[in-house]
């Protein structure tokens, strides 16, 4: 394993994160590129009272909330696509144990955008007239205000800049300097660029010469990156386009067991707390045969015939 530049061991980077109240923006989307290895390590190291931000909630956030380590969750909605709902998140909302701040995919990203541009806020018409806005306005310290534009006198929602302490995204590869290559859509680009410290887990560290041959594939250049951790299959059981597919068996089972806290607790104990690292998690939950079968077809970018 290459260990130069910004390359760090996952456990060491997670150890740096405050044990209580850390602010982390997560980069996944439902069932793709969720930073699962990172999130599992947060739980193993006993981090608590996390303040989480996410565009669209997915598998990783549901596991964190289920593990009881999230204090406040800012997100634009979320699900496991056809595999189910974020029942740990939703139940937390239903019984009031999770302090949730519901945004939308655009509105939360306008906050990240303002953060990435270094400006105090971004105005937008989105959320005017909705209960989403009414709820946000009713919360203490919420970062939205309705104001008239000085230019056209029209009503806008001002979305306050957000620069989370950490952003954690998973990508197929990066070089040791922290130039991050992502294939497919890049819904997490704004939050990655907004954070004060960007941590990237990658399936593979590639040479800077590879990056120099393909600079157009670099979505996030090294100057944003705080640390790079090489964690093969670091998003499993969610997918990484052009690397590996999601595990439909595991996700559909999870989409059922996350309905009950007791069932979830058993799963967490067995696969996360009961494993010492991501390799053990992979071997226990998937096994070598399954991981090989999930390898992406180079033309399609997912495993044809795997599901």
């Amino acid at each position, binding site marked *: 394993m290459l260990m130069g530049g910004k390359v760090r061991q996952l456990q060491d980077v997670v150890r740096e994160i405050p044990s209580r109240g850390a602010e982390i923006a997560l980069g996944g989307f439902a069932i793709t590129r969720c930073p699962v290895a990172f999130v599992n390590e947060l739980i193993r190291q006993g981090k608590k009272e996390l303040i989480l931000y996410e565009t669209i909630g997915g598998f990783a956030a549901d596991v964190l909330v289920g593990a009881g380590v999230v204090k406040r969750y800012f997100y634009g909605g979320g699900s496991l696509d056809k595999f189910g709902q974020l029942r740990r998140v939703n139940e937390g909302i239903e019984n009031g144990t999770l302090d949730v701040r519901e945004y939308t995919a655009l509105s939360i990203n306008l906050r990240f955008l303002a953060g990435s541009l270094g400006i105090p806020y971004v105005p937008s018409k989105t959320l005017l007239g909705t*209960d989403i806005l009414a709820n946000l306005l009713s919360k203490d310290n919420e970062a939205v205000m309705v104001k008239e534009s000085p230019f056209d006198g029209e009503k806008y929602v001002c979305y306050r800049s957000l620069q989370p302490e950490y952003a954690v995204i998973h990508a197929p590869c990066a070089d040791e300097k922290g130039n991050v290559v992502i294939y497919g859509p890049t819904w997490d680009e704004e939050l990655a660029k907004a954070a004060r410290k960007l941590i990237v887990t990658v399936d593979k560290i590639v040479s800077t010469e590879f990056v120099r041959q393909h600079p157009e594939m670099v979505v996030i250049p090294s100057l944003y990156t705080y640390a790079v951790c090489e964690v093969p299959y670091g998003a499993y059981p969610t997918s990484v386009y052009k690397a590996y597919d999601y595990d439909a068996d595991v996700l559909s089972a999870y989409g059922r067991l996350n309905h009950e806290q007791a069932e979830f607790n058993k799963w967490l104990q067995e696969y996360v707390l009961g494993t010492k690292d991501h390799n053990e998690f992979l071997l226990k939950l998937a096994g070598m045969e399954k991981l090989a079968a999930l390898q992406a077809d180079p033309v399609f970018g997912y495993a044809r015939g795997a599901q």
Partner: protein
Amino acid sequence: MAAVTYTTSELMAVTAARALQDGQNVVVGLGLPQVAALLAKSTHAPNLNIIYEIGVVNAEAFDPGVGIADPRLWHRSEYFTSSIGALGSILQKGLVDVGFLGALQIDCFGNLNSTQVKLADGGIRHFTGSGGAADIATFARNLFVIMKHEKRKITASLDYLTSVGLLEGGDSRSKAGLPMCREVKIITNLCVFGVNREQNTLEVQSLHPGVTREDVLANTGFAVRFAAYLQTTGIPTEEETALLRTQIDPRGLFIK
């Protein structure tokens, strides 16, 4: 010639597809909206641009997927972008002609709830939330919704207003500061609702073949208005049903 045989979901997909025009830009999610957009693109609208909010433009999926986060739906795309790229520079800029949404509930003004429902015991049940839905309803010039026609879903009052349709009718939408919404079209298994221009409220504009006014009244939670010139929804052609069955949804994942 024998009459074309079709199912209700085929009729819904065909009705939605015909409402899309060539050259339009449409944001869709998985399911019947995506099926309808692909049918339109395969027939009268070859220049339709189909956008997924995750940041995917004009994909040509080869295998069916489980949602827009499934790389199967990103196959042979023309463009990948970020959240702001899709929902900011495309949607908020005003480039989207039609936003195609689903919902848990819809009211007589076409406002949508995809967040949570109230339970009989006073509690709530939380679902997916907005995603890009509220953003799409804000900025798309036309809002299309496909949903099942049930009294508890097509309702007098929403448990939660996630996405704005006509708000409270009249000029309430523009008074709230929102951009204009030209058309709200709701395609159910019984009928098609559209906007009555004078009242700026929803009215039933066509009934599906064999459906009566009484069927609609019995299954709708609000006082239904019928258009002065109530039409019968056009039935699918053989070409359309053949495309749906053999090319667009051959495994019958969305079309039943």
